């Protein structure tokens, strides 16, 4: 299986084509297309209700899309063979696991399921938890449960990890631990990761590519470094707080409070200044602001 994995390098682990889904009459998205290259970590970001969980459910075969399909390693996600399922590690939102077991029982269970099981990373993570050997997972804290779920996925040694809102309920320390461990593991072992999160802090440390969804559509999919280099926020101080502010294709999003305009664009400062002069916008100053990924996400999708 590993040989096969290496030969396929550069191919797509996930390929979603013309994906359309409705809940009743409500459109979630239409003709959605995206791919995840093998060996990459892709973060799917979007506001609540943008369709992140719908996408994850379709990928995991728990939801039939209204139209279109997702392929995982070339197989339709609705009919994955056991061999392909073995290659996928799945983290359910909220780090759900068989919480009626303790850490020994659950390790014993999964070790019999997966042929590539390697318990070393699991026990390494478990040694950091202050839990008793017989303590049920259900009685652990959210952070501890996240480590159990992560440890199990790492021990499974899958080629593709699908992580649904991995940051949910984690305090900053555990989130950082989770991300650092995951990044190191994925890069060392050339794993592919597809993840969603609505907490975007720290994500820059983890992902290679970013896919940002808004209601019904994809806003962008590109390498995160490129996105962070190209996407900019300019803060414009207007002379007249009541003056109209024009829009054109340069402005991806504009947030305005009185005389302060936050202008989000892929354009340059020169292009913006030219745009302002063309539209006779009088301003006191224009400054580019440094952005974190979270700022950029909010800038692109809007605050509301």
């Amino acid at each position, binding site marked *: 299986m590993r040989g096969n994995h290496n030969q396929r390098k550069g191919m797509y682990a996930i390929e979603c084509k013309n994906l359309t889904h409705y809940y009743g009459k409500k459109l979630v998205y239409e003709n959605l297309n995206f791919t995840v290259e093998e060996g990459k970590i892709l973060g799917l970001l979007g506001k609540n209700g943008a369709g992140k969980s719908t996408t994850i459910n379709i990928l995991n075969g*728990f*939801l*039939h899309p209204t139209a279109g399909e997702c392929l995982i390693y070339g197989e339709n996600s609705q009919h994955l063979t056991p061999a392909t399922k073995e290659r996928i590690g*799945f983290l*359910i939102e909220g780090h759900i*696991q068989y919480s009626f077991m303790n850490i020994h029982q659950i390790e*014993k269970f999964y070790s019999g*399921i997966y042929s590539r099981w390697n318990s070393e990373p699991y026990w390494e993570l478990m040694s950091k938890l202050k839990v008793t050997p017989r303590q049920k997972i259900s009685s652990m804290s959210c952070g501890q449960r996240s480590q159990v779920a992560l440890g199990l996925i790492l021990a499974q040694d899958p080629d593709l990890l699908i992580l649904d809102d991995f940051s949910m309920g984690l305090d900053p320390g555990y989130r950082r631990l989770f991300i650092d461990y995951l990044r190191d593991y994925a890069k060392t072992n050339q794993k592919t990761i597809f993840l969603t999160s609505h907490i975007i802090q720290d994500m820059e440390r983890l992902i290679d590519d970013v896919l940002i969804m808004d209601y019904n559509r994809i806003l962008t999919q590109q390498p995160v470094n490129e996105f962070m280099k190209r996407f900019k926020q300019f803060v414009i101080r207007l002379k007249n707080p009541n003056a109209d502010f024009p829009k054109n294709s340069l402005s991806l999003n504009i947030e305005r409070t009185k005389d302060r305009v936050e202008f989000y664009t892929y354009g340059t400062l020169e292009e913006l200044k030219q745009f302002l002069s063309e539209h006779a916008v009088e301003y006191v100053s224009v400054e580019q602001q440094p952005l974190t990924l979270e700022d950029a996400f909010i800038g692109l999708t809007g605050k509301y």
Partner: protein
Amino acid sequence: MQIDYTMWKAIIYKEWIKIRWTAAIFLGLGILVLINILLRIRHDILFVDATNYWYNVLFRGYNYASMLKFLPFLAGLGISAAQYFPETVNRRIKLTFHLPVKESRVLMGMHLFGTGSLLLIYAVWLILFVIISAIYFPPEIMQSTLITIIPWFMGGLATYFMAALILLEPVWLFRVLYALVAYGFITMFYQRAGLAAYLPALPELAVLTVLSSIVVLFSGYRFRKGEM
């Protein structure tokens, strides 16, 4: 083949962890009820007299096993809840369906284990019951009583199957509808009737019980389809 064996062993291990206490409690409860039946028979035969007691059983429809009546039903319900309720909490069945086995196979494997465990409990109860009966009654009475109580055990199995269907169903409205069907179906096994009165209906009831064993696949299918 080796992988398949270790995988099924692991799945059985998970199912065992879920049901072990419930199974042990029902097994013990049944044994206590049987001991109670034994002591009652002994008491009545000693203090009333055997001829009268037998007369009551043969001609007045007295069933000395009546304490057992709803125990198989409760055990079926209990085992099903212990096995399938944890799978429905937080939609944990997703984890099970994600295991590298066909979804229908893993569900039937779990179901087979639950059924086997239930049958084992029933077998222990029935063997003890036959032993107790054999001490105090002739084979004819014992046989008629066994025919009387067999539908209760079939009803217990049907309860296990129907409860699994209801628990795994993702939509509440459907759960209610299934519960109504299950009520109508299961009460068929527990009608008030004379000694061995169910004899002519036993084959039909057995067929219905076997058929109900696979209905859980429908809930599994609906879950995978994304019904919510």
